[in-house]
């Protein structure tokens, strides 16, 4: 019997304290092990980046009491292994739900088959973690072969088991893995891989080459053309912008509480938010993506749900409780990237076509300080210190640029195009209008 099973058995006995009993419950447990190794200034290991291992047993818990109160909390190892010791503490945290009703719980039902576990990652934890350390060699050799002077990198892997269960009969248990590589060459060119599938030597070699080549390009200072007409935002940048300015504002709780620029009326009237060919989708079924899991921590099955469909607001991001309050469907909840997908019914450009269309402008991969910008206004004004200049459709050296504007307007402008980048689940965005672009 696993620790999670023992906890389920305990809760199923309707435990009580102070004259009240637990009549319903929901839990999620995770038991996993992680490995991390790093390179700092071209040297693997060392006191800050030495190989590290982490073991964890935890999760979250929701208890419904016989007097109508609810308790919510995180689970630590002790709580999972000896829940009777924590019952009184959980009861002391009980409160009346704002809705006046106990939150709904997922009942029995199937979940879709999704790919969350790569045996190659799991094998790292069965014995020798050396293959992970060997990735460091690939990074160092691959970047040096392309002239890198300095390399910094973080390589991680994890393997674990997750369980979601409710007193109403929902039960789901699955194995999950994660593999990530983040690397920077000469503090200029960076690349990133983060999926549930092990980064193969070929992938690592590719990341190393990509970063080194980009760093070589960015070493050369360049000037923003006076004819610069726009910016190509790479997928990670688009994910960050949407994650900052759209997703929080599409949260059902934020809409309900008036903290979003969107209102309940906007939902009910299916207000047009984006250009009509655009949709904003969450998808937790993508094979081996970090977003993917068979269900959410509440037991909402994996799936694909449109928040914005053909430009109109159709659904908020909603957990079971607020979904019931608002009379909307609970939505799948991405566990990681891609947090949201921007899709278009118009043809999506490839990278070369996007650069050709851009002509003169910049490529932006990072906007430091995005978290300082007011999310509820969907507007930003920041400096991209390492933007890549594009002239005549050819990517060149670096320059610092100021970027500003309204994200929703930039996404929706009739000239904005989605850009497919090889190997990326998300899309880039070519913004030709509505963006203030100046040398910094």
């Amino acid at each position, binding site marked *: 019997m696993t620790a999670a099973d023992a906890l389920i058995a305990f809760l199923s006995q309707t435990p009580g304290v102070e004259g009240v009993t637990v009549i319903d419950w929901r839990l999620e447990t995770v038991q996993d092990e992680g490995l991390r190794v790093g390179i700092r200034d071209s040297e693997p290991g060392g006191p800050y980046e030495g190989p590290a291992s982490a073991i964890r047993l935890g999760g979250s818990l929701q208890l419904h009491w016989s007097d109508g109160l609810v308790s919510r909390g995180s689970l630590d190892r002790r709580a999972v292994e000896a829940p009777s010791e924590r019952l009184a503490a959980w009861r002391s945290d009980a409160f009346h739900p704002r809705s006046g009703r106990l939150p709904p719980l997922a009942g029995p039902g199937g979940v879709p088959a999704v790919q969350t576990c790569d045996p190659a990652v799991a094998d790292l934890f069965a014995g020798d973690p050396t293959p992970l*350390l060997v990735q460091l060699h690939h990074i160092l050799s691959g970047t040096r072969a392309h002239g890198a002077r300095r390399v910094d990198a973080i390589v991680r892997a994890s393997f674990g088991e997750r369980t979601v269960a409710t007193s109403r009969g929902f039960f789901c248990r699955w194995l999950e893995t994660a593999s990530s590589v983040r690397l920077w060459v000469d503090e200029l060119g960076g690349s990133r891989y983060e999926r549930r599938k092990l980064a193969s030597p070929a992938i690592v070699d590719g990341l190393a080459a990509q970063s080194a080549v980009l760093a070589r390009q960015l070493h050369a200072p360049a000037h923003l053309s006076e004819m610069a007409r726009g910016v190509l935002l790479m997928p990670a940048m688009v994910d960050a912008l949407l994650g900052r300015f759209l997703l929080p504002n599409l949260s059902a709780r934020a809409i309900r509480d008036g903290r979003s620029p969107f209102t309940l009326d906007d939902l009910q009237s299916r207000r047009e938010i984006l250009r009509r060919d655009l949709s904003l989708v969450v998808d937790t079924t993508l094979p081996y993506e970090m977003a993917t899991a068979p269900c959410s921590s509440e037991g909402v099955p994996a799936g694909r749900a449109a928040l914005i469909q053909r430009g109109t607001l159709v659904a908020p991001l909603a957990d079971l409780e607020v979904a019931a309050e608002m009379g909307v469907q609970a939505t799948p909840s991405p566990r990681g990237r891609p947090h949201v997908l921007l899709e278009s019914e118009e043809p999506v450009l490839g990278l070369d076509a996007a650069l050709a269309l851009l002509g003169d402008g910049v490529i932006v991969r990072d906007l430091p300080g995005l978290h300082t910008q007011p999310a509820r206004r969907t507007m930003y004004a920041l400096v991209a210190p390492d933007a890549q200049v594009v002239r005549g459709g050819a990517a060149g050296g670096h320059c610092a640029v100021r970027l500003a504007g309204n994200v929703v307007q930039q996404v929706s402008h009739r000239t904005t195009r989605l850009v497919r980048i090889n190997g990326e689940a998300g899309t880039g965005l070519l913004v030709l209008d509505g963006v203030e672009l100046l040398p910094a």
Partner: protein
Amino acid sequence: MRVCHFDAAVDAALTTARAAGLRLILRMQDTVERRLVMVDGGIDRDRTNRLAGLGVHVCTEDGFVGFASVDDVRPEAATEAVRRAGRLAIAARAIGGGRTDAFQQLSDLSATPEPGAGPMQTPGVCRTPGPADTASIVRGAQDDLAVVPAGAGRTIRTTFSAVDEEWRIVRSDGADLQFRTPHALLRHEVTSRLNGNVVRAVATVAGLEAADILEPLPLARLWRRTGRAARDALAAASAPPPAAGSYRLVLNHALAKGLAHEAIGHLCESDVDGSVLMRHGRLRIGEQLARATVTVVDGPLPGDFAQQPVSANGILRQPVALIEHGVLAAGLGDLFSAAAAGVPITGACRASSFRDRPTPRMTNIRIQLADASTLAADPDTLTADDVAAALDGAGLLDSRIPTLYLAGYRGGQAHPRRGDFVFGADAAYDLLDGASPRGPASFTGLAERALEAIVAGIGPICADAAGMCSKDGSAVTSSGGSHALLVLDPDPDLVISAAT
């Protein structure tokens, strides 16, 4: 203290390390966090999270390092963690990883208290009102905001957090230190609508323990700060954005803390090899970086949100004058990087949890001006007119110099090796245009130019601007500030921008 009862795990870790020929730093943490979120008088979240665990940092005799953590403080878990860390250190040797001789210095560190000196209790006992009392006090604080102007359709979301955190740092040289790092925070977020725009105002009080911030005086302070933030947010909501460019800038103490933290503190951390305040990997100690009236200090203050008396390597944390009379005087040095950076170890390293490898971090960082002028107004209720009057009184309101007052700190980010920083402000006021409001603004610039540009401080030192620092993904408490107002002269490399 709870960590006093971890002796068996300590013994197991030390025994296993000794048998394997490993030097060891063992970090044990036991945390109880209470978090209450209330929205318009109704409880949205109320939970108590508990976590205890240990992290083992080992080093072979020839200097290879491995690390392991587990959320289990039983002796067998400690034994296994040391073994895992040891295997990883050996694997690091196999790949020719970096080495350190830092572990060999441990017993030589005079800053370390005598082994077995006993627990270092942060003053006071962790006092937290009961759950019902806390909810009642928070609800009352929300009710008191009814008179604060905030626009239509107001929602008040209040977050209360109280963390009872204990650490035990044990080393193979015999050091065994136990200390507490409690911290508590109460934050109001008031959201409303004005002309179709969402208006958001945030205010915070923070301190050591829950009882410190749920008392009438701090609650009154929070009420005043919320009123000020709401007034600024409403003014900014329908105001034009500030024109992009360079200004004489007036920062309130929260923004000044952001400047100190992002543009100065991070650049002085000894592990940031290649910081612009370094040359050939060593801090440029002795160089004049600011006016002679400027001092920047980092170090724990009594009752402070970010207080940490002992480093994550078991070394007493010292207050450090980073900038003294305008001269770069010191760095935040930890065991592993201080020597390379050319600075002494100051006990600067921190870890947010037993799972993290510690790095040099700030605690409370503050900018002090030797010739600061006085301020007649209450810093917690400052209006733009008060600021204009204060500047005028100090001879700093010059019709030839565009002057902008920034209010409402939205967080920041720095790149110590590039030397640039950015932070956000909720509102701005053009002090040459009758203190008329402007919309939210971004303040970007070069750190060294910001240091040079500090020209004046006005009012008392306000050093309680609290937040979290997420360096390398590890979130630790941070706080600080400056005088109630800090004035920077215009500089082409210090720029205000805003979306138009």
